[in-house]
């Protein structure tokens, strides 16, 4: 592969790397596993990049490849399984927004999302990234109606967790 292609790819990935980091955060629970998955996503993106025509935005294309890597291709290595867990899920609240109840609720919510299965996590991730149901259904390969139904179920599930 030529240097120019490599250069353009690295620049795009550097710019959009947060998409992959968010996916890694959702699907792994420790630092090593996060880096391991990020590495695999990078390799998969790079391998697929020559076929990226630019018909869609790089970020849109990246969502699909990165999610596919996380839920289908990624093989957890032994090295990453037995390391320490993150202490809960961290999140940042600006001082002016600080709300003890809301903070607590968010903590519970992040933990609840971590407990969901791989497919539910993918749905939640795309939803949180503001993707519409058409995009969600195309990324996962299910019908739009079913994506909506499943999303509503997840919402209810999360609501129950918050207000038992």
């Amino acid at each position, binding site marked *: 592969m030529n240097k120019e292609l490599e250069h353009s790819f*690295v620049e795009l*990935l550097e710019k959009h790397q947060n998409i992959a980091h968010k996916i890694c955060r959702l699907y792994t629970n420790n630092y090593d596993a996060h880096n391991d998955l990020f*590495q695999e996503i*990078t390799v998969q993106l790079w391998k697929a990049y020559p076929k990226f025509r630019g018909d869609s935005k790089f970020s849109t294309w990246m969502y699909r490849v990165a999610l*596919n890597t996380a839920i*289908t*291709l990624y093989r957890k290595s032994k090295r990453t399984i037995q390391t320490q867990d993150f202490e809960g899920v961290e*999140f*940042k609240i600006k001082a002016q927004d600080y709300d003890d109840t809301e903070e607590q609720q968010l903590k519970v919510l992040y933990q609840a999302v971590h407990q969901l299965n791989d497919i539910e996590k993918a749905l939640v991730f795309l939803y949180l990234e503001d993707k519409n149901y058409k995009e969600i259904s195309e990324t996962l390969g299910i019908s739009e109606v*079913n994506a909506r139904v499943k999303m509503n179920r997840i919402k209810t599930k999360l609501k129950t967790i918050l207000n038992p």
Partner: protein
Amino acid sequence: MDGLELLKKDWNKQPEHKKLTVGEIYPMLHKKSSSIVKTLFYISVAELVFWILINTVPYFTSDSFRERLDTVYADDGTFTVLTVFGYAVILLFIFLLFKSYKSISVTDSAKQLMESILRTRKIVKYYVLYNLIVAGGSLLFGFYFAFTHNPELADQVAHFSREQTIMATAVVVISTVVFILIIWLFYRLIYGLLLKRLNRNYKELKKLDV
């Protein structure tokens, strides 16, 4: 506020992971992939090679085996036909596997991607199944051939009582079945472990579309 809406509000405020620089990303491109497709590919190549070796090594390493086989081939055209058929099957599997691997695309939808991988795995499964059937058949045929064409054995078998004949047949059949079962379980274990997560996620996606 709805739980998910609350989460959405906070989602982009998450602390960013240490941002990688261009210089840090470059070396990552050339690291080896450890995806299940790659592992599946290595396993299928190993299987192809393994069964080809099983079928050819005795011919090249044992003079007596080669002599005996050459005599059989010279006497009976059926063996030549069977051998040609065997190699044709191997070529067909190589072609199907290659085609199937080419169809795996990480840019497909998650469901499509999983289906392509499972289809590839199915081809490998049929290849193994084919080889096990051939191996089982050959073993049984080999035993039969030895009992009927080896003068010493044939003589012993001729003096077998009814019970002894039943016993000998049972031992031959059971040992063949056990041999095949062990190999089959070994494959199930390898693929079971490798594709456990993929199968679970595929089932989940299919359940959504029912």
